[in-house]
């Protein structure tokens, strides 16, 4: 059973490598087996290619603030996937989920975000189903 799971995972990984890698870079620096969720205040939006970046100040348990970076796909893809620059602004309270950096840096690959409007925006693939559910579509 475990072997089968690993095989399926490897197949998925290979499929990912052979397709998504082409987007711009590999995703090997992210631990895609994990998802972490945080809330905070948007401190910076970089609406750019080859990737859009959104930075969020997250308050830690000890009261200090940690700046988290979320890497989205390109500005080009987001434009065609109904995510626009005016949907997230500096100062917005958001909740986000990413596949974190494997090396423990405070950042990761975008999975989902709950926007200040209360609406969720999700990545394509597995995350999309979550958005459909949360947004009642």
């Amino acid at each position: 059973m475990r072997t089968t799971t690993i095989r399926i995972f490897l197949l998925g990984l290979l499929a990912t490598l052979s397709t998504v890698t082409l987007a711009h870079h590999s995703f090997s620096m992210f631990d895609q087996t994990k998802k972490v969720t945080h809330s905070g205040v948007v401190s910076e939006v970089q609406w750019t290619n080859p990737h859009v970046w959104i930075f969020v100040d997250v308050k830690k348990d000890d009261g200090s603030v940690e700046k988290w970076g979320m890497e989205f796909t390109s500005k080009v893809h987001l434009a065609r996937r109904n995510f626009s620059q005016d949907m997230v602004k500096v100062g917005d309270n958001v909740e986000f989920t990413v596949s974190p950096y494997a090396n423990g840096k405070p950042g990761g690959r975008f999975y989902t975000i709950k926007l200040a409007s209360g609406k969720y925006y999700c990545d394509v693939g597995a995350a999309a189903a979550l958005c459909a559910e949360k947004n009642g579509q």
Partner: protein
Amino acid sequence: MKTTLLSLTALTLAVLTATSLAQPEARPIYPANSDKVSYAELDKLPDWRGIWQPAVGRVTGDQPQLIGEYKARWDAEQAKLKAGNYEVPETLDNCEPDGMPTMMTMPYSLEFLFTPGKIVVNQEALMMVRHIFTDGRPLPTADEIDPNYFGYSVGHWEDDTLVVTTVGTKPGQRLGVAGITNSDQLTITERIYLDKDNKDMLHLDFTYEDPNVLSQPWHQNHTFRRDRTWDILEYVCAENNRHPLDANGQTQADF
């Protein structure tokens, strides 16, 4: 001493004069560049307007029969990938274009612009541009080739199929999948045509031939879906690349 200097100057002048006076070999003018152009000819071509998005992950064809050092490299890369936390080093991560054939199959949009004697292909990702000459010129000979990202492409129409031959791509670029690269002997043949039942689907059938890499021709078939609602968008890779490669060709996890 002075005489020697004068002689040298005279000699240099003579050489320069001779060089500047030598007539360059006349280069032929092909229809793409001639005074006579026929835009009317373009009306006979199939309608490929709009942008074309690849059906990512749906590649058919046969398996590459790798040989020699190229097989050894493939095996080594697969072993490293299986061990995990590894990526095949490729310069695309540093915003360097992949060139041919990869530019045709990236998960972004393609656009084909027909002009008299030349087809221009725009790849949205990294804003790559490719020129396919359809004016009857021959492929360059081996000594005329200066290997480059996109190579030299000539094409012709067989009914509604565009048949393109490309040579002269830089050795070491991705060939078909990450982990396989080409030598300086690669010839790429493409057959590009609309699906007979669905005019919003485009087929691109590749044949790769490289006697240093493959023991027999390798075929890869891709399909694309037409989008008539969007235009091609700007994509400047150097705008904000926060994940350049480290010295080992691995993406840096430090933004």
